[in-house]
């Protein structure tokens, strides 16, 4: 069995308010301990804000600025610019936002910050819905998944945020998930040691929102990768693609059946989702091939 040793610097601490077994809290643990104590955090309303803690408590041994739902990237930019003026070039600025705060309402600020190549690590903890407000859909919610605002299943596809961010040609874009913690921690460390806008989207299963067993977050997260539903890859400067973990020949049904939000699916719908997964995987591979060996041209 593969074990992963985390260099726990206790930047993130136990005793926080997440549901026991929460995938988002697990991701925060890897992200914060890898970023280290010389970091200032920015957190919008989300389950992450709950995990961060109510006044006067904090689960995070770093200064945290809790911002508004739309403003994470702009707020982080303000800190990072002020730090530069103070000559503090070694302090990391980390935005930790949900998918709602990233794909939807916070997208304008994120895109603006990416275009300006603001100096920050922006981590989107993607649980594919607005969990803090009761598991409504976001534009990250996958096709046919049930949420409290799409009780019949979501009629549209999940937005491809990694490709959108890569199209901004920022220094670093990566996908990661808690089921592959060494891959996640390596990507956070890599991003931390770069400059400019760095973006990592981390798939983080939500027990309640997805209808997953208390001990299921890691298992489901691994299946998301192993079925090809959520491939793990990196893009540097919008062009240099590296696939880290892709499908291992496991049908997507194995992933879907672990989650109550897909329980209503009939056979044809499962086939439709499988076809979508296969199609997106072939597109990703084609992109990797077409970009291979490309020199970066500004």
């Amino acid at each position, binding site marked *: 069995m593969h074990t992963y040793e985390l260099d726990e610097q206790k930047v993130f601490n136990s005793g926080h308010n997440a549901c026991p077994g929460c995938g988002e809290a697990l991701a925060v643990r890897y992200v914060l301990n890898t970023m280290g104590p010389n970091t200032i955090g920015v957190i919008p309303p989300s389950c992450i804000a709950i995990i961060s803690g109510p006044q006067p408590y904090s689960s995070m041994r770093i200064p945290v600025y809790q911002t508004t739902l739309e403003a994470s990237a702009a707020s982080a930019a303000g800190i990072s610019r002020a730090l530069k003026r103070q000559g503090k070039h070694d302090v990391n600025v980390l935005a930790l936002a949900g998918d709602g705060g990233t794909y939807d309402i916070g997208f304008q*600020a994120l895109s603006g910050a990416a275009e300006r190549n603001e100096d920050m690590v922006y981590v989107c903890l993607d649980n594919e819905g607005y969990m803090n407000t009761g598991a409504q859909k976001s534009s990250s919610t996958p096709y046919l998944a049930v949420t409290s605002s799409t009780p019949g299943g979501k009629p549209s596809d999940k937005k491809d945020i990694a490709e959108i961010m890569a199209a901004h040609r920022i220094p670093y874009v990566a996908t990661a998930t808690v089921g592959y913690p060494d891959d996640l921690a390596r990507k956070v460390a890599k991003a931390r040691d770069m400059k400019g806008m760095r973006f990592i989207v981390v798939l983080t299963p939500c027990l309640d929102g997805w209808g997953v067993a208390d001990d299921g977050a890691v298992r489901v997260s691994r299946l998301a990768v192993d079925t090809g539903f959520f491939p793990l890859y990196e893009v540097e400067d919008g062009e240099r693609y590296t696939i880290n973990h892709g499908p291992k020949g496991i049908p997507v049904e194995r992933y879907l059946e672990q989650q109550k939000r897909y329980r209503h699916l009939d056979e044809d719908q499962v086939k439709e989702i499988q076809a979508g997964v296969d199609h997106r995987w072939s597109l990703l591979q084609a992109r990797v091939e077409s970009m291979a060996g490309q020199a970066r041209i500004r």
Partner: protein
Amino acid sequence: MSATVATPRRSPPANQAPAPGDLRLLLSGNHAVSYGAMRARPEVVPIYPITPQTPIAEKISDLQLAGDFDVDLMTAESEHSAMSACITASLTGVRVFTATASQGLFLMHEMLHYASGARAPIVMVNVNRTIGSPWGFWPDQTDSLAQRDTGWIQYYTENGQESLDTVIQAFKVAEEVLLPAMVVHEAFYVSHALEPVTVPSQERVDAYLPRFDPPHKLDTEIGESWGNVVNQDMFYRHRKDLGAAMNQVLEASVRADADYKDAMGRGYGILEKYRTEDADMLIVAFGAMVGSARVAVDMLRAAGKAVGLLKIKLFRPFPVEAVRAAVAGVPRLVVMERNFSPGGGGVLHQELKAALYGMPDPPAVHGYLAGVGGVNVSPKKIVELAEKALTDEPVPDSVWQR
């Protein structure tokens, strides 16, 4: 609560020689603001363009390019993001300036509350412009007045010189009480009108305005956080503290202005009485209309009518005691204003009536919606309206007057 009233003091006459090191330039109101901002030495300026604020942003860019203004200019993708970055840059411990108008101010609205709640002493200039729909580009104070509950200090100025001086003073007050401050002047009448303006030397401004170095900031060495969820008691206490800080603004503004006058030779007070001796009536105004009202008062006095002027400069916090003291013994007031709150009337009219409530022998108050939408209110028009107010019976509601 104590507040003093300044002796009348307008911008120096055009032929006045500048003090050594000061610049004497022909500037629009907006460019005067840019020079004021430059002298205050903000480190970060997150900004987004909108008519009629744009000349402020453009001049700052020019001054930066010329090497005169060492600043990080963040060309944000929206006013919401500009204000979001202003707040965090300020909380990280650097001085921050920005400017906006109308629709931009409204897009910032959520973050305006956030700024005061976070106690970030940002200084922002708002250029008053009508708010859509329909579209217009005309001077109208409704945009900034609609932000009166956001916890921002608000100063209304009447010309470019006053705007420049007030930007510098606003930093002094904001950083003392830890509240954001808005300096407001009107589209075109002030923003684009050219006047000779004195730009105080960097040495004199540095001596007046010390470096911003707050004890609390976002700093990994200090480890303090901002904005976490609080319980009801904490929220209550937080709002009460914010109110107490607002109350300090009255005294801090008077002091900042008096110190400025000592240093630079120009002061304005938090309000100004002009030719109010033995007056039968005072015209109450703020912003650009004050300049025209001054001329109108001279015309009325020349015609033997005992009419004076009360200029309100500090609008938030509203200087209740100072206003009461200024109008004590005057039988009649007429507010003339360039804004409209549907269902409420003129905002200054409302505020003034509230301030005078319960005062012994209060003056009768007329409220005239005189310049809404930017319509011109000439000194002649003000004379005409004042004469009407001298004889008409006041009514509780604001009255449309053209």
